[in-house]
C-alpha cells in the first residue's frame, strides 16, 4: 500500500527532495510505543489482586444425639454467646442453673483472654513455630505436632453459640480467633438451652 501511494503521487520535485534527504529505513515507532504504554497503564490500573480466602468449618453430623451429655463431662470448657452490638457473654466449665454468671466482653478483648486461657497449648504451638522457622522440624511435622497439642486434655474446648441477634461477621471473627489462639477443639452450635437463655436475656437487658 505504502509503495503504491508513493508511486502514484510522486512528482519529480518530490523525488528529488527525498533523495536529497537520504531517507532512512527507520519507521517512527513512537505512536506504537505510546499505545503500548497506554495499554500497560490501563491494565496495571484496572488489575486488582482480588484473592478471597476461605475458612474451613466442620459441623458434627446431626444424628449424634446432641453433644449435651458430652459437654458436661468436658472440663476446661468455655461457652461463648455471641450477641447483639458485637458483644460476647461467656461462662467457663459446665452450666449450673442459678449459679453460673455470664461475663461480658467484646471482640477487642477476647483474643488475649483466649490466649491466656489456652496458655499451655498456645505456648507449645509458639515453640513449634519457632522450631519450624529455625528449620529444626519440617512443615508436616509441625502440622501433626500442632494437631496433637490442640487435642491434649488440658487444651481449651470452646463452644460458640451465636444467638438470634448475632451477625454472621461475629461468627467468622470468633472462628478466626480460634485459629489465632491455637484452639483446635471448638464447635459452633445454635442450640441455646432454656436455662442459658434466661441468664442470657437477663444479661442482655443490662446493655
Amino acid at each position: 500500500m505504502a509503495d503504491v501511494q508513493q508511486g502514484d503521487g510522486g512528482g519529480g520535485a518530490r523525488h528529488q527532495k527525498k533523495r536529497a534527504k537520504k531517507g532512512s529505513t527507520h519507521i517512527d515507532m513512537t505512536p506504537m510505543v505510546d499505545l503500548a504504554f497506554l495499554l500497560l497503564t490501563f491494565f496495571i490500573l484496572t488489575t486488582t489482586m482480588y484473592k478471597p480466602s476461605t475458612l474451613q468449618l466442620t459441623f458434627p453430623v446431626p444424628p449424634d444425639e446432641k453433644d449435651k451429655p458430652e459437654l458436661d463431662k468436658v472440663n476446661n470448657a468455655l461457652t461463648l454467646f455471641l450477641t447483639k452490638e458485637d458483644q460476647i457473654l461467656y461462662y467457663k466449665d459446665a452450666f449450673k442453673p442459678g449459679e453460673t454468671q455470664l461475663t461480658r466482653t467484646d471482640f477487642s478483648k477476647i483474643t488475649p483472654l483466649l490466649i491466656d486461657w489456652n496458655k499451655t497449648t498456645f505456648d507449645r504451638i509458639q515453640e513449634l513455630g519457632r522450631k519450624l522457622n529455625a528449620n529444626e522440624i519440617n512443615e508436616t511435622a509441625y502440622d501433626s505436632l500442632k494437631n496433637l497439642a490442640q487435642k491434649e486434655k488440658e487444651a481449651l474446648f470452646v463452644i460458640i453459640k451465636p444467638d438470634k441477634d448475632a451477625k454472621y461477621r461475629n461468627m467468622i471473627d470468633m472462628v478466626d480467633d480460634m485459629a489465632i489462639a491455637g484452639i483446635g477443639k471448638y464447635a459452633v452450635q445454635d442450640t441455646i438451652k432454656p436455662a442459658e437463655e434466661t441468664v442470657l436475656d437477663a444479661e442482655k437487658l443490662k446493655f
Partner: protein
Amino acid sequence: MSKLKMPRSSPALDMTPMVDLGFLLVTFFMLTAQFRPEEAVVVDTPSSMSQSPIPTENLMTVTVDSGGRVFWDFTDKLVRAEVIKEMAKRYKISLDAEQERRFVNLNDIGIPLQKLPTYLSLDSPVDRKQLDDVSPGIPIDSTDNQLLDWIRVTQLIFSSGSGGKNPIVALKGDGNVNYSVINKVIKIFQSPTVKINRFKMITDLEASRIATKAAEPQ
C-alpha cells in the same frame, strides 16, 4: 579529523529494550487479566486471617447477601447445563436452548424457579440486574425449599459425572447479615438428603489481623 567525525553519535536513545519490556508487560497483563464476571449480587464478606485460597473448580457457592437473600452458583459449565435441565424438569418449567445457554454462562442465580424463564429470556445484563435487584432470592422456607433442590441436583449430577465425588461447598455470606439466616442455610446443608457437614466460608484476607498475630510476644 575525518576519523573523529565518523561516529556521528545521535542524541536519540535506543529505546528498543524499554519498548520490549513494555510490550512484555502489556502481554502479561492482557493474558492474565480476568474481567470481573457479571455478578447478580455484591457481598461484603467478613475478613479473617486464613490464607487458604478458594478453589476455582468443582465449587458450589451459596451466597447470602446483606438482605438475607440466597443465591446459588456452580463453577463448571457442563454441570450447570445438566443442572438447569433437571431443575426445569422437576419444577415443570420449559426453557428453550437459548435460555439454557444463557443460564450456563451466568454465575449467581437468585431467582425463584417460577420466575426463571422470564429472567433467562432477558438479553441485556442491565435488565437482568433490574430483576435481580427486586428478586427475593432462592426460597429456603420449609414449604418451598428450592435451595435444597438446587444443592441436591448439583450433587447428583456432579457425582454421576465424576465417579461419586462430591462438589466442594462454599458459603459466602455478607458480614452484616443476621446469623439466624446463615444458620438456616447451614441447617439445609446438614439435612439428611444432602449431608454437607464440611464446607468453606469465603472471607477476605485481613492484613491487620496477620500483623497483630506476628506482633504477639513469642
